[in-house]
């Protein structure tokens, strides 16, 4: 137990913890070790490769990393330096310094300024991401259910057939109304999604039962599928290949295996790929 | 209620000593400790509690506002009994004021009838509310039949529970009044009246929200 300093500094009877300096250094070391560790992981994992037009989200994340990283290093170094430098020596007193309006206003305003910049960029980006889809965007409907994704294409007529949840059954999980002429050419896929490259797609997201979340990690797309609501998002796939669909909202026991696949194909090969997928 | 004790002593009794009596100096030091009291703590605490209740009903109200916009909303026709109930509750607030006025005016003997009338009207209100539910059920308006029904049962139920708590408190007040625990000339019923009037006001608000606005 560290003996507590006597009240009178001038008497010089204070027993100073020999561990003090070491502890301060340890604080610094822990911080540095942390940064080193972080960097180590940094190189191994980062955002999944971007395959859509939402590059601005990646930029925002990078900007956040740079700015907050700088603040992190600066403040932690200060914390470590102060704790190493200003140890109790049992002789002298701390500076009687507790108030400096100019300094306080300065850091408040600088922080506010930085945050306002973030805010401005964030609002612009959000407006861009949530803007209405282009007129030529391809329509797809995604309906979550425990524990699968039903993906529906409107077919040649470009119109999704009517659905009625009262009609839902084992064979007709989303309750497609077969009497509606638009429904006859609808293409239904289970846990598969075929997308043409470089063409905007608008996805209408729905749910049959509980809340799911339609997450395409490579496309920077995530949207909750809420029963009773239809939410529309849009994006443009870029880069041919196979990617994963995940459910990001806890939706029950099978949440962890509510997994699907996205196949991005060239615009020319799209119809054939869709037909192949539907035939499976 | 002991508010008269609180008001007469410079510090409230409960602050003089700890729970169980306080330290050696707690009882005997006589002199005033601490700052001037701005508020009587019990009264202040009651107002805080009413604030919390208000927040809860703001929560319900916002849910109601959102839900009412949905297309499946079928307005519920209130049973006529509700208006009679409301009149009984308003009247009970009035008779409570009558009791307070008599207590303040040193008319101790006159307090009893007014107080009893308050309690009777309160019981009448609760009974009336239960009857109103029964009437609705007999007409086929169940709690889940449509959202307006759900809200009516929910809000009148939550209000009713608080009113029943008020009636329990009323029982305590009545016993104290019979023991002449309230000093004439003082407003000993003040706290109970605050709670009771709050519930009356709340009910009028709920009624307006549910069936008028």
């Amino acid at each position, binding site marked *: 137990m560290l003996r507590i300093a006597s009240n009178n500094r001038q008497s010089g009877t204070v027993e100073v913890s020999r561990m003090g300096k070491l502890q301060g250094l340890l604080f610094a070391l822990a911080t540095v070790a942390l940064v080193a560790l972080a960097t180590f992981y940094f190189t191994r994992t980062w955002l999944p490769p971007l395959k859509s037009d939402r590059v601005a989200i990646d930029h925002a994340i990078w900007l956040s990393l740079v700015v907050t990283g700088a603040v992190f290093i600066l403040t932690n170094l200060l914390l470590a330096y102060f704790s190493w430098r200003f140890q109790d020596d049992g002789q002298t007193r701390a500076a009687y310094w507790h108030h400096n309006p100019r300094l306080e206003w300065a850091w408040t305003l600088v922080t506010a300024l930085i945050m306002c910049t973030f805010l401005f*960029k964030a609002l612009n980006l959000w407006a861009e991401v949530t803007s209405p889809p282009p007129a030529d965007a391809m329509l797809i409907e995604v309906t979550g259910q425990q524990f699968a994704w039903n993906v529906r294409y409107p077919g040649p007529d470009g119109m999704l057939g009517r659905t009625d949840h009262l009609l839902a059954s084992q064979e007709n999980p989303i309750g497609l109304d077969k009497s509606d002429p638009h429904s006859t050419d609808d293409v239904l896929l289970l846990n598969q999604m075929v997308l043409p490259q470089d063409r905007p797609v608008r996805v209408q997201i729905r749910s049959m039962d509980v809340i799911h979340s339609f997450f395409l990690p490579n496309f920077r797309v995530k949207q909750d599928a809420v029963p009773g609501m239809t939410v529309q998002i849009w994006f443009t796939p870029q880069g041919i290949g196979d990617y994963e669909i995940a459910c990001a909202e806890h939706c029950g026991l099978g949440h962890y295996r509510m997994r699907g696949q996205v196949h991005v194909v060239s615009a020319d090969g799209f119809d054939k790929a869709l037909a192949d997928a539907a035939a499976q | 209620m002991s508010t008269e004790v609180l008001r007469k002593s410079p510090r409230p009794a409960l602050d003089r000593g700890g729970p169980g009596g306080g330290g050696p100096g707690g009882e005997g030091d006589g002199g005033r400790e601490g700052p001037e009291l701005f508020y009587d703590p019990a009264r202040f605490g009651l107002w805080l509690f009413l604030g919390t209740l208000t927040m809860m009903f703001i929560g319900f109200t916002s849910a109601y506002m959102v839900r009412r916009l949905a297309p499946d909303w079928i307005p519920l026709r209130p049973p006529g009994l509700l208006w009679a109930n409301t009149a009984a509750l308003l009247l009970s607030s009035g008779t409570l004021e009558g009791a307070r006025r008599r207590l303040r005016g040193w008319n101790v003997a006159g307090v009893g009838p007014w107080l009893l009338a308050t309690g009777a009207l309160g019981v009448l209100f609760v009974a009336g509310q239960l009857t109103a539910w029964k009437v609705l059920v007999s007409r086929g308006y169940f709690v889940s039949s449509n959202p307006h029904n759900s809200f009516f049962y929910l809000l009148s139920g939550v209000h009713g529970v608080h009113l029943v708590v008020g009636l329990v408190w009323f029982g305590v007040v009545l016993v104290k009044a019979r023991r002449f625990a309230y000093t004439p000339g003082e407003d000993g019923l003040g706290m109970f009246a605050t709670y009771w009037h709050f519930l009356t006001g709340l009910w009028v608000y709920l009624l307006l929200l549910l069936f008028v606005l």
Partner: protein
Amino acid sequence: MTEMAHGPEAHAGQAHAHAKEAFIWKYVFSKNHRIIGVQYYVTAMVMALVAGLLAMLIRLQLAWPQKDWGVLAKIFPMGYDAGGGFGVMRPEFYAMLFTMHGTIMVFFVLSTAPVSGFGNLLIPLQAGARDMAFPFLNGLSFWTFFVGCVVILTSFFVGAGAAAGGWTAYPPLSALKAAVPGSETGQTFWIVGMVFFIASFTMGGLNFVTTIINLRTKGLSPLRMPMTLWAMFLVAVLGLLAFPALIAACIMLIFDRHFGTSFFLPTGLVLNNAPLLGADGKFLHQGGSPLLWQHLFWFLGHPEVYILMLPALGFTSDILTNFARKPLFGYKSMVGAMCAIGGLSFIVWGHHMFVSGMNPYLAMAFAVGTILIAVPSAVKVFNWLATLRGARIRFNTPMLWAMGVVSLFISGGLSGVWLAQSAPDIQLHDTMFVAAHFHLIMAGAALFGVFGATSYWFPKMFGRMMNDTLGKAHFWFTFIAYYCTFFPMHYIGIAGHLRRIYDPYQYEFLKPLQPINEFITISALVLGVSQILFFINFFWSAFAGRKAGENPWDANGLEWTTASPPPHGNWPGAIPEVHRWPYEYANPDFPKDHVMQTEPLTAAEQKLKAAEGPSRHEH
């Protein structure tokens, strides 16, 4: 409002009756704020033990999901497929684990230990009151809380097990019994437990606010209050304003679950490919809104995270200044920042719902509030750093924890800036990045704050000191293990690792993350095991620690002017009067390097005060 029963007759006999009080009234159904505080604290410790254990099981599962845990299958037969030599965790058990870990930690541990525990212990001591304003209500509050704990713990053993819809209990998952096993009886117990908790917290809040407003001692003006007292005041106000929304939501959820209403349940629910129909062949539920629950829940939920954090920030300010032997820098801006954080916390709840399908314009409004809340938070950090500049730091256990809070508050706060921007949140929402963020800032800061406060105010709890060497060992293990556990979660979160997922490696893109998950799990196990040091230190010191004097840390606050532990009524004589702020360290005008709050102003100070107006010595 039960306390009004303090009639004249109750008052008269108090003073002498209490000496002969039976053990049960003195220590079990006590009305003394210190005893109640300790009761809250110890109950929270037990709950923390349970919730911590759940966390360990979660971590084991995430690192090695398909592993056969024969031993665990024997200990938790309900959670593991024990038959045929298999001990693989069941998914329903996993859902139960993370749901109950979150619920217990947020409400029954981290709201309870700092707020109800230290609040009850410290408010009367720091405010200069004999006890809380309503001691009976205070006791009632604890026992209500206790019933809530029992209900929550019992829920593991009823029906299909405890609630499994996440601690946020989003309907329809939490409302439809067939949606997940935990939504049967378990969810009902969850709601009942929460109602008890909220009732208890409301009683506590009434007591806190009334005591701080009405029972402060002479001279303790608002701008002479210690930061802890400010934090407790704000926390109580936040609780009184925010919890009613959750109780309203809980009542509506009960109606939806048991009376067939449709507050949160929309038309057209289809479970297992079968429409959920009523007797009339129409949908049982009509037209409700699942988002309504989210709004009501997060209207509480966001202030709630500040309810967890603000006390820790208060403790940190008090501890940091003491061990830096230096006045708190920018006291007024610290108070202002705390009030700003408390106020803003009511208009930011929608940032939990950026991808929920909420109107995007509404999301913008919430992003504004969320980003702005970074400003007062940063002000607090800068003030703390400035407090350390030119200090004379003593590295005792409380100081280490306080610096730990500063460090965690920085780390966790900065990732908040990422999440506050609604567009990056699209990628990061519901990933481990969020888990990293709130474990660092909300859980971590609150936890470290509680540890710091425990080692600092232990004398006022038990009259003894905690062991400093053990305390330091505990700190270093915890600090390093805490960072190793939660910092890497940022990286796997950025890589897309989902939250609340029973087996992440079902996904190809998450398979490479297994080694990191193993590292996190090992760190988490170290973190968990390190807490044994704390339990040993706590109980050993409580009974056999070095006896503490009135003021073992050379501190200034009112709580240090009375014996450790304080007697009934807190001060044997008159309640001391306050003449100055609690951070008068290192003032060159005084022979001692710390000046108690009760020290009258010197002639020179009085002259200065008269000359400069009242403001200078306000603080």
